[in-house]
């Protein structure tokens, strides 16, 4: 085995045998899912019960109860109590003072007056601020009730009729050059953004691991023994490639694990809902019906969206930028690790390397709103941001010249970056106890071998 092969093998086997690798591989997707689920839950979950008093000055959304003892919603299907929202509504025609509200059992007070009718603005007083979710729910109820009032009372129209003629407008996009129907750029951009995020995390996670690995070798003082057997450049590349392979392994295992989990989940759901019966049933459906189902599928937006994406191109570019971006950043991180003796010193050099990554991330998200932005095109070609930005740019439709220049610039930057990192690495790994600054790094780059 070649020496670089031995280094890659060592890096790989030591890392994958670590407990932390196994834990992250198996618990990573679960932890990630829990994290997202937890965050969503925290945002939407509001355990409070709300007792809402709506002061309806003009009686536009409330009416007297049959027994004349109080008020109720004019629209029987509105302002209903349900366990999921835990909001109980009551109505009043007379104003309620602040002090009365404070001493009342209600925790939300809403006043609907002429302003609400004419301008859609009404005042809401609270003792405990409702979550966005609950606030949306209450405002949605009032909005629809007021709409019904306007339609039925002011326009004298049947509300169901009104609903049936009310249609939103959206565009089917067509690029005149391609003359094929384009799916929504935003939706396609999301796919690119997903790829971009994967690359972003991969570069960050494993780039930092490379840096720590180099620092470990340096502080362990093993490095001088190793570089008496192999060239520093071989050691650096061996480490970068070895850790990259560890990352790829983890990545592939995550995908497989997610596959297994979703398969298990769908089988479980299927067994709970009699999915097998549905499949049996499908086999007995006559061909006409099957064709109708297929047509319906073809007309489905989601299906159109999936078919509108150039998957081979996206996957090909993903692999190219995933590897190219990691190798470029991995060697830069290796150079930082070689230049410093400890974590604290690494901060000053981390910043210029991480800033382009963060810029790439920000530009990617802004590209979703403005796909043709020249700034976006520039960062899709600029090699330090291209691995992230190009994925979104390509997903929403990048010209071939942008993709090609971006790929060429990444290859050139990779070669230049590795050359630069190799120079810093070679000197840095044998330099102990010296506080290094940028001037010093420039000197190292100028050293002859």
């Amino acid at each position, binding site marked *: *085995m070649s*020496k670089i092969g*031995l*280094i890659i093998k*060592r890096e790989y086997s*030591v890392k994958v045998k*670590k407990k932390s690798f196994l834990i992250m591989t198996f618990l990573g997707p679960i932890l990630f899912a829990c994290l997202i689920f937890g965050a969503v839950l925290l945002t939407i979950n509001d355990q409070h019960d709300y007792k809402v008093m709506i002061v309806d000055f003009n009686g536009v959304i409330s009416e007297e109860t049959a027994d004349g003892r109080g008020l109720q919603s004019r629209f029987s299907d509105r302002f209903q109590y349900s366990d999921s929202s835990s909001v109980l509504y009551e109505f009043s025609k007379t104003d309620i003072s602040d002090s009365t509200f404070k001493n009342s059992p209600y925790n939300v007070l809403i006043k609907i007056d002429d302003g609400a009718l004419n301008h859609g603005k009404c005042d809401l007083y609270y003792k405990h601020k409702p979550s966005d979710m609950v606030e949306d729910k209450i405002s949605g109820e009032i909005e629809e009730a007021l709409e019904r009032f306007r339609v039925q009372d002011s326009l004298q129209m049947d509300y169901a009729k009104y609903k049936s003629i009310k249609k939103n407008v959206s565009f089917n996009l067509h690029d005149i050059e391609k003359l094929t129907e384009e799916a929504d750029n935003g939706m396609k951009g999301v796919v690119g953004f997903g790829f971009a995020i994967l690359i972003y995390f991969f570069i960050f996670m494993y780039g930092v691991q490379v840096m720590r690995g180099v620092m*470990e*070798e340096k502080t*362990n*003082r*093993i490095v*001088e*023994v*190793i*570089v*008496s*057997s*192999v*060239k*520093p450049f071989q050691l650096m590349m061996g480490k970068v490639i070895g850790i990259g392979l560890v990352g790829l392994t983890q990545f592939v295992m995550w995908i497989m694990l997610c596959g297994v989990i979703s398969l298990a989940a769908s089988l479980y759901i299927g067994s709970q809902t009699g999915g097998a019966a549905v499949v049996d049933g499908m086999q007995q459906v006559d061909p006409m019906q099957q064709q109708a189902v297929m047509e319906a599928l073809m007309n489905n937006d989601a299906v159109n969206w999936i078919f509108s994406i150039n998957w081979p191109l996206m996957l090909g570019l993903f692999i190219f930028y995933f590897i190219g971006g990691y190798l470029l950043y991995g060697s830069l991180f290796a150079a930082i690790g070689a230049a410093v003796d400890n974590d604290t010193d690494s901060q000053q050099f981390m910043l210029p390397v991480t800033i382009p990554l963060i810029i790439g991330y920000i530009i990617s998200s802004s590209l979703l709103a403005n796909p043709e932005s020249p700034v976006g095109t520039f960062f899709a070609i600029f090699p330090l941001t291209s691995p992230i930005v190009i994925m979104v740019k390509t997903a929403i439709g990048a010209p071939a010249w942008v993709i090609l220049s971006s790929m060429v610039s990444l290859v050139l930057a990779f070669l230049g970056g590795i050359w630069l990192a190799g120079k810093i690495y070679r000197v840095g790994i*044998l330099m*102990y106890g010296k506080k290094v600054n940028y001037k010093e790094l420039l*000197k190292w780059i100028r*050293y*002859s*071998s």
Partner: protein
Amino acid sequence: MNTIEAKNIVKHYASHQALKNVSIAVPERSVFGLLGPNGAGKTSLIRIINQITAPDSGTVTFCGEPLAPHHVEQIGYLPEERGLYKSMKVGEQCMYLAQLKGLSKAEAKSRLMDWFKRFEIHTWWDKKIEDLSKGMAQKVQFITTVLHEPKLLILDEPFSGFDPINAELIRLEMLRLKDQGSTIILSTHDMGSVESLCDNIALINRSEVILEGPVREVKNRFRTHVYALQYQGAAMDLGIGLWSNFELLENTFQDGLHTAHIKLGEGKQLNDLLAALIPHIQIISVRELIPTMDEIFISAVTKFNQGHE
């Protein structure tokens, strides 16, 4: 034949000149002491021989051939700042380093087994490096340095961290390796080990070689021609015997014996001194006071520094 011959090596680091026209010749099957104060340029020279860095100018030959990348497999290097991967096991660590030096897996394993038995550490194979004491780790490092049976061994402070028993074990191994054909460059500040092991030395100070040659010859160069003479009789009689060309530096009396330190004059030999004294005193013993390597080191460096201030 010389295993290593470095000629006119110059090395700069930015504005600092690490080596100024340094030339050394390390004869085959010898122990060569590379001496010098801290920061003198020893490590720079060692790194050039190891091809970790290259000289700005000058040439290095290895067994007569210009130094080339394939020679690293014939060199074993134990740096002063040495360490091991803490989380790896002793066995896999040694296997890895041996393979980097070009040994096959099977060869590395069989040689390691022999060395582990010789050092009585065969139970350590599956131990983690982080569980070893400093001395234990040093033993493992020594084995990984010599395992591929290199023609040239470069040992930088090989005894540091060892207790006297293990230091002796390493010293004997070095002599055994030399007998088997290895050439050893020993860089150390322990002048006792230089005296007991080295055949030749080079003393580097302020990036230059200021003293070199076979140890015996170097010592000769620093001879002061002072003899310690033990005798019985009166000190007055000694004075009578010492006529011109002999200088009495000191005379002490203890346990019924006098000890005199006498410096020979220009062109005089020990026989002349003895011939002059025998008629006057009873000589018990006589030995030359040869300077130690420590004294030579201090004297050479001090003299050089004074001359360059």
